[in-house]
């Protein structure tokens, strides 16, 4: 031992080169040590859930700043860095993310964009929600403005995912979760979308409830366009179901006696009440126009086009009859087609014959009441009668051979008179017309078939 002390007293000169070495070692290794410890600390934090993580290494001391989502997560993160080999001290600058009270999350949709805002409980969930929104809306842009906060209710993610599934069904609108209350507003993309959303909301996770669902359905549109050039009536838009569809199609084919009905209607729920009545009445008015457009949007009926003569225009403007539903709005924009030039009696007769070959004036069975579906052909007959003002016209009624001849003759005359009354009401002088009832004495077809009988029941216009 004595020896050792003696030797050691002579070791001091080596300290000078040792100090030089120390200086070089420090000079060379400080930055590599810091970089190495920084990388190791970052790797150690991989398994932890943190936000805004910043690691700064000074020598072997690590300053860890991060937002944690629970006290346990915060402690785990600090411990993970503390146990990294080589780390001397950890300066703990971690904190818990603020707690949101109430915890609010929004998904807002406009035409081109979905914006997610409010609070999300975890960064990974934030990513999943954004991804789900992106998948749901296809091409639209998804803007993530969510911040992170604690305090989300249990099963928040399931609720948010379910609501994101609904965002695709909205044209525009906003979905909000406030703690466990769900609010929805906006406009559904398609008819039935509102109902589909309401149905989906029944599957919200336990604990969540719908505070307000103000999603509106898009307008229920029905359109008809009468094109005199193509001789078609195009029906587009929606009808409530197949029965109403069939009823409207049948009614249209009866009302439009010269035009072909092109039926492009689709069945969809969401029709306003009394849809069928309103549409049938409006189609009746459209059938009286030479060209026109009918747009039924929810409870609003817009009819525009040209009537055949002034009286018809006034009649159409006046309304759609007593059956038109009370709480519906009717907006007619009716002009009058320029009057066609006058023609002589022979031409007039030809025009009458042509018109009555294409369609016929219908009556209620066994009675002399004119079927409202005949308004279109009557308007055309009146327009023709106006073109030959100096002629007298005999209106002849015919029946089929069913029933007693006396009754048939009386009925045919009454029907002819009903037509005259209609013409006079439209503004033609009564003196030009005479009614005659032929009963079943002048059949144009056999009375042994329904088809033949239908042909025999007719009104003829004869220019005298």
């Amino acid at each position, binding site marked *: 031992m004595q*020896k*050792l*002390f*003696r*030797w*050691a*007293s*002579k*070791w*001091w*000169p*080596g*300290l000078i*080169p*040792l100090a030089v*070495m*120390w200086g*070089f*070692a*420090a000079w060379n*290794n*400080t930055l*590599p*040590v810091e970089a*190495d410890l920084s990388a190791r600390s970052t790797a150690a934090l991989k398994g932890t859930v943190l936000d805004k993580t910043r690691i700064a290494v*000074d*020598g*072997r*001391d690590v300053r860890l700043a991060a937002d944690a989502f629970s006290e346990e997560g915060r402690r785990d993160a600090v411990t993970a860095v503390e146990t990294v*080999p*080589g780390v*001397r*001290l950890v300066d703990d600058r971690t904190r818990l993310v603020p707690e949101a009270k109430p915890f609010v999350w929004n998904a807002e949709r406009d035409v081109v964009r979905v914006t997610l805002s409010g609070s999300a409980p975890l960064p990974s969930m934030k990513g999943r929600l954004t991804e789900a929104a992106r998948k749901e809306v296809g091409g639209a842009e998804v803007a993530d403005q969510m911040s992170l906060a604690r305090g989300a209710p249990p099963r928040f993610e399931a609720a948010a995912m379910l609501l994101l599934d609904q965002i695709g069904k909205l044209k525009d609108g906003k979905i909000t979760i406030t703690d466990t209350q769900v609010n929805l507003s906006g406009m559904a993309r398609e008819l039935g979308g509102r109902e589909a959303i309401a149905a989906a909301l029944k599957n919200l996770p336990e604990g969540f409830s719908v505070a307000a669902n103000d999603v509106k359905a898009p307008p229920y549109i029905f359109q008809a366009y009468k094109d005199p050039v193509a001789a078609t009536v195009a029906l587009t838009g929606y009808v409530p179901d197949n029965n109403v569809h069939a009823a409207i199609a049948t009614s249209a084919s009866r009302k439009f006696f010269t035009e072909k009905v092109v039926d492009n209607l689709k069945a969809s729920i969401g029709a306003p009440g009394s849809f069928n009545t309103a549409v049938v009445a409006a189609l009746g008015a459209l059938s009286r126009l030479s060209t026109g457009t009918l747009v039924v949007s929810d409870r609003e009926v817009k009819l525009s086009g040209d009537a055949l003569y002034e009286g018809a225009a006034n009649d159409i403007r006046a309304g759609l009859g007593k059956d038109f539903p009370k709480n519906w709005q009717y907006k007619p924009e009716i002009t009058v087609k320029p009057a066609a030039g006058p023609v002589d009696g022979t031409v007039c007769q030809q025009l009458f014959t042509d018109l009555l070959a294409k369609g016929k004036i219908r009556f209620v069975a066994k009675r002399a009441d004119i079927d409202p579906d005949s308004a279109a052909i009557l308007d055309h007959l009146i327009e023709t009668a106006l073109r030959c003002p100096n002629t007298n016209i005999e209106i002849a009624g015919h029946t089929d051979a069913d029933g007693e001849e006396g009754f048939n003759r009386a009925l045919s005359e009454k029907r002819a008179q009903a037509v005259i009354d209609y013409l006079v009401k439209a503004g033609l002088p009564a003196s030009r017309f005479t009614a005659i009832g032929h009963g079943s004495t002048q059949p144009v077809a056999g009375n042994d078939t329904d088809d033949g009988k239908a042909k025999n029941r007719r009104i003829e216009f004869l220019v005298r």
Partner: protein
Amino acid sequence: MPYLVSFHLGWLIGSVLLGFCMGWISVVQRGNGTSKVTARWLAALAAALVAVSFARVVPGRFGYWLDLGLILFACYLVGCTIGAWLRDRVVSRSMPAA
């Protein structure tokens, strides 16, 4: 400690070799070396530095440099001891022959 050793292995071996040379020389060197009082003071200083290092009171890079210096110094002392002891054995074996 294992981290410091493995990261600076080359430098530590260097300081061991330096110490070995110094120890090797110190056995046969003439002269008095440091006085007892100075040696005590130096030992006290070294102990104080070790205490400071273990207490981790020196922050950041200075703390790291202190640790590095002490570990180099420790290796140097180990090298000195080994060098001096071996030289002593060599010297004492050759003495009877001479």
